[in-house]
């Protein structure tokens, strides 16, 4: 339990001559959670891809569950944004979730009862057990996002990466997502969420990482999500509303 789930050590990523990320540094403990916050193009998706071992680092090191990113992939699950997927695809919600078990099932074996049970449990955890047989595309945006989270849950990950999971999601689905994420954390999984939504970052994550190519803060949410740091990250004026939520407007 001493090994951090994720350790970012002076991480730098470049695409050719363009620096996408530099000096990103921080740690996430098992059961911990961090929100990646920054404007569009800040490098949040790049960082997630780097954690997955999909982009090479120019400098620094990423350690996932004590290993190199590529080696740890079996225990890492990724949840993409649901609206990037084809709504016409002939696949049911249940089948999508079962895909989360593929790593364990392998190429040729048939899914075992244990696999099917895990998939069913995962779908239940996001509150969509009754929609298992419905075609994925017939679900609402928020429900699709929940199904994708269930797919990740079915994989029994120790690190969960989510890319803008709350975008365009209805209130019911939002709550279901938060509950399911909380459930995973209670089981010891660490969670990294890239999001614009500062209020949800407060709700879902103990820590935040403010980044816009370089890092403007990494620490407990309350302390780190300050107007000054946000201004620095977003490069504009920050307004405080009710002392809680912060709206950022560009100058």
């Amino acid at each position, binding site marked *: 339990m001493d090994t951090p789930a994720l350790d970012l050590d002076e991480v730098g990523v470049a695409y050719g001559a363009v620096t996408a990320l530099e000096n990103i540094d921080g740690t996430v403990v098992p059961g911990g959670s961090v929100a990646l916050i920054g404007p569009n193009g800040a490098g949040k998706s790049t960082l997630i891809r780097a954690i997955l071992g999909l982009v090479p680092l120019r400098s620094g090191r990423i350690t996932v569950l004590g290993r190199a990113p590529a080696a740890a*992939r079996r225990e890492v699950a990724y949840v*993409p944004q649901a609206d990037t997927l084809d709504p016409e695809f002939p696949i049911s919600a249940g089948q999508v979730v079962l895909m989360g078990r593929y790593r364990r*099932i392998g190429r040729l074996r048939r899914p075992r009862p244990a696999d099917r049970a895990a998939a069913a449990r995962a779908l239940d955890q996001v509150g969509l057990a009754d929609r298992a047989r419905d075609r994925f595309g017939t679900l609402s945006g928020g429900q699709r996002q929940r199904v994708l989270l269930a797919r990740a849950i079915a994989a029994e990950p120790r690190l969960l990466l989510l890319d803008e999971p709350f975008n365009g999601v209805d209130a019911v689905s939002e709550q279901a997502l938060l509950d399911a994420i909380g459930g995973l954390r209670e089981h010891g999984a660490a969670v990294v969420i890239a999001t614009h939504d500062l209020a949800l970052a407060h709700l879902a994550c103990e820590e935040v990482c403010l980044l816009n190519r370089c890092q403007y803060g990494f620490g407990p949410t309350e302390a780190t999500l300050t107007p000054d740091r946000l201004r620095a990250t977003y490069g504009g004026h920050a307004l405080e509303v009710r002392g809680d939520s912060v709206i950022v407007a560009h100058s």
Partner: protein
Amino acid sequence: MIAPFTQPFMARALAELIVLGALAGTVGVLILLRRLAFMTDALTHTVFPGVAGGYLLAGEGGVFWGALAAGLLTAVLLTLLTRHRAVAEDTALAVLLTTFFATGVVLVSRESGYTTDLTAFLFGRILTVTGQQLTQTLAVAVVALVALVFLRRPLLARTFDPGGAEAAGHRIGLLDLAVNAIVALVVVASVRAVGTVLVIALLIVPAATARALSDRLAVIVPLAALLGATAGWAGLAVSYDASVRHGLRLASGGTVVLVLVGLHLIALVGRRLRLTRGTA
């Protein structure tokens, strides 16, 4: 509709069309889901000079190998091109395809009386299929189907959610290459029977019909295969019938495609009726 097939050449033609129909139907589902119609069209253009070149170098027997070489080369090149999207690659592709096709035309036209050969390459000539060709087709079918079965889960993951598949560690580039190669193989196998121009019909119409009739892959794939095979048999039977009983020479490849399109229209009408009757 069984009697004509007791003759050996008809039996071979039937076997060839059934195998091709089933294979093309199956692979066609993948093409449909991956939106690969354009790449497939490209393949039919580039296989043609391979066909022509193979024929020139080694006669009838060379057609298969020439097509195979051209097809696989195209599969590799196209995979690379689509992975490294250059500016205006559409333009380059359109130009290159047409030029490849024209190369085939030029090659074929060197022989005098080339019109028959050209027509055979473009539109197929099923009735002269030999036992050896049938064996080649079966070999291709086996290779393609084994590959699809082995790769079905990564393919499903990649087709549905490329980002998620990549995150899970699947090698997207290799998977895409495998798919392109499989499609190339099917195009090559189908060229002799239905010709390069009609191959694409064999690949997309059964799959489109099956998709119109069902929402579940477990149904769509076998249904597409069945539709392809059935059209193969029906098209051959109809064109034979027309020839023997009515003195009408109907190109077999074209007839097969017309049967496929007919089935597609029936399916569309059926679906429209089912929807208006109000089942969600």
